[in-house]
């Protein structure tokens, strides 16, 4: 949903985010929603400024979000408060699942298909009965026995099996009712520590503000994602919104708040190891990806929008390899690197410790502060031959060899560290031009205000000229391995004394163009798989539709009385659509669900979809269109005019996910990997599919370890941003937040004899740090299953550089990952604390 669409919400639930303090610009729209009469809810362990501006603050123990949201789902189902017309038409609630499906309810927290020996799930029993469902994720194909693709073709032969009466024991509705049966208000309180009365007020607020006339939204940030089950927390919210009809409609949706500069953009044109630009799958070293033909055969799904994959893949290869990419050589597909495993940040940090990498580039990141298990990160960096760090101020990552924790403790000596560090000064945002893509998938251009000083250069300058030098270095090589670098098109125009590359030219290439005429493309629907078009990222097509027409530069808001979608303000992918799946804002016949909540509807006279947003649907497909299965339809021909969720194989919102998730088709409550309590819901303690990498230096303790009795969470501050260095070097910011602190409840402080501003030592299975105590009622103890559980919280933004210093919170955190994303856990782990200082003198963080 669009950020500004929050003003149309009748209920906004902020969960997994301290939105007022960390997304203050975005929070204005929540404040406006409240001014218009909407209810604002904040579900969070701490009482923050977001809570202060909310109508309801629901305190929960960190990491118990699925128990809370599962309780909301149960409340909706058992009280029959779901938006029946919406969910029956647009979700898979009536779809029948395979007979062999076994729910977590039947096996104490584990679904059918689990392989105890290796912690992986096979997905056969999660499928629609008699079919195999292709995933809409980049990894399209499920882990099933036999020929998955043959099963996927069933979608071209008939509708998925449904029971419109919802009586079939294996229809999704009945499965969900059984699955969430134990998530009672009493259980929610036992697990989360949130009083039942408060929990029920949240349920009432959500359900009263949903339906034809009203909508509600969720806003989340990394408070949801940074868990060993983060993906399933978001899944739980999608079930709530699918049941309540809060998808694709004004004021409805799940808003991912982006907290880093262009973090959405770095997912789109990705820094992720397993995706090519705009969510195409990265080829792997498996046999089925050996050639382009095999890759496309394996990855192209029979039905839904992703059937267009070959057009996007071939156009990408044409953008990268230009004239050298031809039909005869598979468009140079062989030059694309192939994955051999999980090459995401966490395992690669561990591999760095084992000496696998010889060098590393660090741009826009400060992993000694921002990555988990900071000491192990330092150990890895010390094993490199070379390290390039680009930033505009000295970072802890760049000088770990001199001031790092391991050096301070005497475990490493600078003279023994062989890593050659190149610290290169970079330009700040206002000293370079380019785009940022953030919340709402909004691509916004920014101009350069002034030249960077001295030798500071933009990241674009660095990457471009590095590429030029590499090409020069390999120019005369005759080795096949050097062909990819030789062949890569790398010809962006430059200007000025320092030969600054033209950022607009890069964006033009990302947008795409015709090979024959060089004309910019207007829409991704023009892309072809025959080599006649080039495109760096299909979802961005339309951002630069003419040589001098850069839509991301546009800054024309709607005036009062305007449409309200502000389509003249920058560009939102795809195709400048502000609300995804907005076909769902109309009923199956194409009429708005209500006048108050209309957005996109079918204009029968004109024979097209119209409205106040660009329809996220085929423009001329009538609501009454149904697939003609006698013709075995593929692609969008297999998606009816009443099926808004076009990226899915059947066009339906997936309340139950048969494919694409590695840890279950429905969200299930597990305790965090490290926790002071047992899971009271199931015998299964933690996510059975979690990625664990135990090794010396990355120890993980068992549940209820008396050495680590407190829940520990981390967060950032309004004044100090993320890895911190960009703001810690600013005197005015540093003055507002001068040093590190840990927030402790008065009850816990009293138990340890700690007063405000006392020194405190925090410890985990990985390390110890010392910080000042901030004793505050913002933190509170929770009663969990009859036992008092204390929680402490600490900003993770401090380090030893800049004016505002302090020990690094992430020293305490372990390296283990969500099975779907390999993302780390920063929001719910454990620690111990004691009054006092570290035993070794001169704790590094406090400026002594």
């Amino acid at each position, binding site marked *: 949903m669009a950020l500004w669409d929050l003003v149309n919400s009748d209920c906004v639930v902020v969960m997994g985010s301290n939105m007022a303090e960390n997304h203050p610009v975005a929070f204005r729209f929540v404040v406006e929603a409240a001014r218009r009469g909407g209810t604002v809810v904040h579900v969070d362990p701490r009482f923050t400024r977001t809570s202060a501006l909310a109508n309801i603050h629901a305190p929960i123990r960190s990491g118990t979000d699925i128990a809370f949201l599962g309780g909301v789902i149960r409340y909706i189902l058992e009280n029959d408060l779901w938006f029946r017309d919406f969910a029956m038409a647009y979700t898979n609630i009536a779809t029948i699942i395979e007979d062999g499906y076994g729910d977590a309810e039947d096996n104490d927290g584990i679904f059918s298909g689990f392989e105890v020996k290796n912690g992986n799930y096979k997905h056969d029993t999660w499928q629609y009965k008699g079919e195999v469902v292709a995933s809409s994720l980049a990894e399209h194909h499920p882990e099933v026995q036999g020929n998955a693709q043959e099963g996927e073709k069933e979608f071209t032969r008939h509708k998925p099996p449904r029971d419109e009466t919802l009586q079939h024991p294996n229809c999704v509705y009945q499965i969900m009712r059984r699955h969430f049966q134990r998530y009672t208000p009493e259980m929610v309180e036992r697990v989360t520590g949130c009083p039942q009365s408060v929990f029920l007020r949240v349920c009432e607020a959500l359900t009263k503000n949903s339906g034809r006339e009203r909508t509600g939204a969720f806003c989340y940030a990394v408070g949801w994602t940074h868990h060993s089950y983060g993906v399933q927390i978001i899944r739980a919210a999608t079930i709530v919104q699918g049941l309540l009809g809060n998808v694709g409609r004004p004021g409805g949706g799940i808003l991912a708040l982006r907290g880093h500069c262009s973090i959405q953009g770095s997912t789109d044109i990705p820094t992720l190891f397993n995706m090519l630009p705009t969510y195409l799958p990265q080829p792997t070293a498996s046999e089925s990806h050996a050639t382009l033909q095999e890759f496309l055969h394996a990855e192209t799904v029979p039905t839904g929008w992703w059937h267009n994959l070959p057009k996007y893949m071939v156009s990408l290869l044409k953008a990268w390899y230009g004239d050298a990419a031809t039909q005869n050589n598979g468009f140079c597909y062989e030059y694309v690197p192939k*994955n*051999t495993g*999980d090459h995401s940040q966490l395992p690669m940090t561990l591999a760095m410790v084992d*000496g696998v990498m010889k060098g590393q580039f660090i741009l826009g990141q400060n992993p000694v502060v921002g990555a988990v298990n900071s000491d192990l990160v330092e150990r890895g960096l010390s094993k490199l031959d070379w390290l390039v760090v680009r930033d505009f101020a000295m970072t802890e990552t760049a000088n770990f060899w001199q001031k790092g924790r391991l050096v301070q403790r005497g475990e490493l000596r600078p003279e023994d560290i062989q890593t050659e560090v190149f610290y290169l000064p970079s330009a700040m945002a206002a000293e370079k031009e380019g785009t940022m893509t953030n919340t709402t998938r909004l691509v916004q251009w920014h101009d350069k205000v002034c030249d960077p000083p001295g030798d500071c250069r933009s990241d674009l300058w660095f990457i471009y000229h590095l590429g030029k030098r590499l090409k020069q270095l390999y120019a005369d090589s005759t080795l096949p391995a050097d062909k990819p670098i030789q062949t890569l098109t790398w010809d962006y125009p430059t200007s000025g004394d320092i030969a600054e590359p033209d950022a607009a030219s890069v964006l033009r290439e990302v947008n795409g163009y015709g090979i024959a005429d060089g004309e910019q493309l207007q829409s991704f629907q023009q892309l072809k798989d025959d080599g006649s078009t080039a495109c760096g990222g299909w979802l961005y097509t339309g951002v630069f539709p003419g040589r001098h027409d850069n839509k991301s530069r546009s800054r024309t808001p709607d005036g009062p009385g305007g449409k309200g979608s502000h389509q003249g303000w920058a560009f939102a992918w795809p195709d400048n659509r502000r609300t995804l799946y907005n076909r769902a804002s109309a009923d199956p016949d194409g009429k708005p669900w209500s006048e108050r909540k209309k957005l996109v509807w079918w204009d029968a006279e004109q024979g097209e979809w119209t409205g106040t947003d660009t329809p996220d649907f085929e423009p001329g497909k009538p609501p009454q269109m149904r697939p003609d299965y006698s013709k075995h339809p593929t692609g969008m021909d297999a998606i009816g005019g009443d099926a808004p969720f076009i990226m899915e194989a059947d066009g339906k919102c997936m309340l139950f996910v048969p494919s694409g998730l590695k840890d279950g088709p429905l969200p299930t409550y597990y305790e965090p990997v490290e926790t002071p309590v047992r899971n009271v819901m199931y015998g299964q303690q933690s996510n059975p599919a979690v990625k664990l990498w135990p090794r010396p230096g990355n120890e993980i303790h068992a549940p209820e370890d008396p050495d680590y009795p407190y829940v520990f969470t981390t967060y950032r501050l309004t004044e100090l941003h993320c890895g911190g260095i960009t703001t810690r070097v600013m005197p005015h910011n540093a003055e507002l937040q001068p040093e590190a602190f840990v927030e402790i409840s008065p009850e816990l402080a009293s138990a340890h004899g700690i007063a405000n501003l006392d020194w405190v030592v925090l410890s985990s299975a990985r390390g110890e740090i010392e910080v000042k105590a901030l004793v505050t009622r913002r933190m509170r103890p929770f009663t969990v299953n009859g036992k008092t559980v204390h929680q402490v919280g600490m900003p993770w933004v401090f380090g030893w550089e800049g004016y505002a210093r302090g020990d690094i919170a992430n020293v305490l955190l372990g390296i283990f990952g969500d099975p779907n994303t390999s993302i780390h856990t920063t929001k719910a782990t454990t620690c111990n604390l004691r009054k006092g200082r570290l035993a070794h003198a001169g704790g590094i963080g406090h400026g002594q």
Partner: protein
Amino acid sequence: MANDHGTQALRLVDKLLAERPDKVTHDFSAATRCLTAFRDDLVEDWRANRSEAARERMAKANAVISVIVGGHYPRGDIPWQHILEARKQLATLV
């Protein structure tokens, strides 16, 4: 020295292949460390000689490491068949 590390790496990869642990264990780290030490030796050799043969050995060792690291940090099941192929490659280098 190169063959010491290489032989030790081969022994550890053989141990992995013989035991085929279902879950990733620290044994993978031990094998990886030996392999990277072996590669370091080959890099030294290449820097000293700049011969085509030394370069090829270095490139092959790098490919073996890619597969073993992929087994240590798999995206699904551990790719034992790939590891077996990598082992054969490694044997030609030692």
